[in-house]
């Protein structure tokens, strides 16, 4: 394999691994903070116990997120020296801001995790706020950089050197609003469904205690609100991409010829060599109507663009279909949960619904990763859209093969150990809670 493929493989693996922890780092602090706030407000020790339990799990998750994020900051230079030499001065600013956000998150998490007995309850709760805020800010700052790779602005080039830089224009590039918001709400979506899945599984295994009865509805509030927002921001994103990166949009939709009254392809297999998408459910005129509000509007297809600027259409289209399909299913799950809850005036405990929620946890992660596949594979062959090709940016070092192998082994080891520890921790907490239940916790 050549260095470009290996560099992409290593970077993609590292990003795909890190982002799972990164999104939980955005959403879980908010859940922790709300749980502790309710506990303090209502003098309810069960809510406090829940915040404590989440804090323990989050301590592990955050650390893995921190070290895997460090890998990324190094890999930018190690794998893509050409890219960094060219663009470091343009997009370094949001990274620097992210550095501070990471600082604040790490500092207040230290206070939060180790401060239960050292800080007064209110002061302790206050520490959760900067964690939640800086987690969200980190996500916004980092995605600004990716947005810039999609719509590079704020610099002037002479030869292949950057001469003029407007770092603010680069940070707030045209893709920033849609991409930032869509990622942020997706982070809450994944966190909500991931936490809900844990407690749904607990109910199914008959462990439903006071903590479960509090945790599941709270997580589902976050999940359903974020699902709705993810739908809205996703729609906005797609409209923006249609204007800004028409090749990516046509690949997403599997649209080859430029079409007046374009159909929506649901599923299907794009065949780039034959310039058509087969086996799809085609709904006539729907794509034109969705995008332009006019069933007979014209949508540009891939055939309008030189072949050497196409991404891997198959991957982009599949990833897009998976993201949208799972996103809709997740939103439906969330709505169903709350409709049943409102009708019965009690959280629904139906076995089938709990099973669906257990599946929804991992499904939300798949949806989020697929979204990144769409934006990353969809930008190829460019590392900076229209400015720098990925193939010119990679390192020339001969050591990439072993590096890839070692990183995969490391991530597998970390993933397995973390999962095992979280399960053991949950088991132990559950047993401890069962003991204190018999001692009768004062209930509100």
């Amino acid at each position: 394999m050549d260095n470009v493929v290996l560099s992409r493989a290593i970077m993609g693996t590292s990003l795909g691994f890190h982002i799972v922890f990164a999104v939980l780092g955005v959403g879980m602090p908010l859940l922790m903070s709300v749980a502790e706030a309710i506990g303090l407000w209502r003098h309810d020790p069960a809510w406090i116990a829940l915040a404590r339990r989440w804090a323990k799990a989050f301590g592990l998750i955050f650390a893995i997120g921190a070290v895997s994020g460090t890998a990324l900051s190094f890999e930018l230079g190690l794998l893509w020296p050409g890219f960094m030499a060219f663009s470091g001065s343009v997009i370094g600013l949001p990274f620097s801001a992210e550095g501070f956000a990471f600082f604040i998150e790490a500092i207040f998490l230290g206070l939060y995790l180790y401060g239960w007995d050292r800080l007064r309850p209110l002061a302790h709760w206050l520490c959760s706020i900067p964690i939640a805020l800086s987690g969200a800010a980190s996500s916004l700052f980092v995605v600004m950089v990716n947005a810039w790779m999609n719509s590079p602005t704020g610099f002037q080039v002479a030869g292949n050197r950057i001469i003029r830089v407007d770092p603010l224009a680069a940070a707030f590039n045209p893709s920033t609003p849609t991409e930032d918001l869509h990622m942020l709400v997706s982070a809450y979506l994944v966190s909500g469904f991931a936490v809900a899945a844990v407690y749904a599984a607990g109910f199914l295994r008959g462990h439903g205690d006071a903590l479960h009865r509090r945790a599941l509805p709270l997580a589902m509030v976050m999940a359903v609100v974020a699902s709705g927002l993810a739908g809205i921001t996703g729609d906005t994103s797609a409209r923006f991409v249609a204007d800004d990166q028409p090749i990516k949009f046509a690949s997403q939709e599997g649209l080859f010829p430029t079409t007046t009254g374009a159909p929506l392809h649901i599923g299907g297999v794009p065949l780039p060599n034959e310039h058509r998408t087969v086996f799809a459910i085609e709904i006539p005129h729907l794509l034109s109507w969705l995008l332009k509000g006019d069933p007979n509007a014209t949508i540009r297809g891939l055939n309008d663009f030189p072949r050497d600027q196409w991404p891997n259409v198959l991957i982009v289209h599949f990833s897009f279909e998976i993201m949208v399909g799972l996103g809709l299913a997740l939103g439906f799950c969330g709505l169903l949960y709350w409709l049943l809850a409102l009708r019965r005036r009690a959280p629904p405990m139906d076995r089938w619904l709990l099973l669906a929620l257990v599946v929804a946890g991992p499904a939300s992660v798949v949806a989020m990763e697929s979204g990144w596949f769409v934006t990353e594979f969809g930008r190829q062959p460019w590392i900076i859209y229209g400015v720098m090709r990925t193939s010119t940016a990679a390192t020339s070092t001969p050591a990439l093969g072993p590096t890839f192998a070692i990183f995969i082994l490391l991530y597998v080891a970390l993933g397995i150990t973390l999962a095992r520890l979280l399960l053991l921790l949950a088991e132990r907490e559950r047993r401890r809670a069962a003991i204190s239940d018999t001692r009768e916790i004062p209930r509100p």
Partner: protein
Amino acid sequence: MTNLTLADGVAAILLLALTAYAVLAGADFGGGVWDLFASGPRVRAQRIAIAAAMGPVWEANHVWLIFLVVGLFTAFPTAFAALSTALFVPFTIALLGIILRGAAFTFQTHGYEAAGDLAPWGAAFGAASIIAPAFLGAALAASAMGAVRFSGGQSVTAGWVSWLGADLALLAVALCAYLAATFLMVETEGDPPLQADFRRRAFGAAMVSGVLALVGLVLTWRQAPLLWSELTGRGLWLLIIALINGPIAAFAVWRRSPRVARIAVAAQIVFVLWAWAVGQWPALVPPDFTIHGSAAPESTLLALTVTIAAGMVVLVPSLALLFYVFKGRNPAPTLSDRSP
């Protein structure tokens, strides 16, 4: 002196970040070293003291590295790319060490109550705590020697696979261990036998560091003429202060003055790093990359400086709070739920 510019200012900020990382995270790496070499009748107590000292602060200490990397590629992108290319192997190994150290430490401390002793991760914690500073030290040696060139194309072992690289790798580990042992002397003030354990370790590390530093000077004189001329030129006064401060720090350990020793050892790191940085100024990565020649456009440097200034307004009080709560009094905290 030629006129100092914004680029020099940013370089100075990055030097401060490197210094903060070396002192604060260095002590955390040293903690890992002593976890690995815990011995005697108080093995368990030594490890608990190390975990308690690191627990609340290691992640914040680690962020100085991110700050440094990000600042370097924002302000000096071409030098960053050259460093990343020439030092791919030592940086990648150090990175693996950093990932493994953080993960292993967390697994060990947070996992302990759930899973009991996680022996392989305990060993990984110690080993990774040696690997990371060693390879960062070797990489620093290569850069200081002038092995990172603009043209690229040099061998992947250039500079860091050398006697000086090996010496600085060992010196980095020894200094981390020295820092950690003196910091732990302060943390264990309430437990004299345990403090005596760390005092012995601090003194041993002091001797080893001293020998490695002197060997390093001889090697620099014989094998790295560029670095030698820098250290004996503009950096000489800092080098002389370091040579005086070194014995003072060791003496403070000997005299059982942990608080003096803690400051003196931290100061020793400062003097050594600054002697190198001041010595090579105005070069950033000698000989090809100067601070001015590799700096980003003025607008970037200005925006970066403003961002850092604004960030510091939030960061400094937050860090002060963290260290006040956990380092202001002894004994250090443990994860609150360790006791049932």
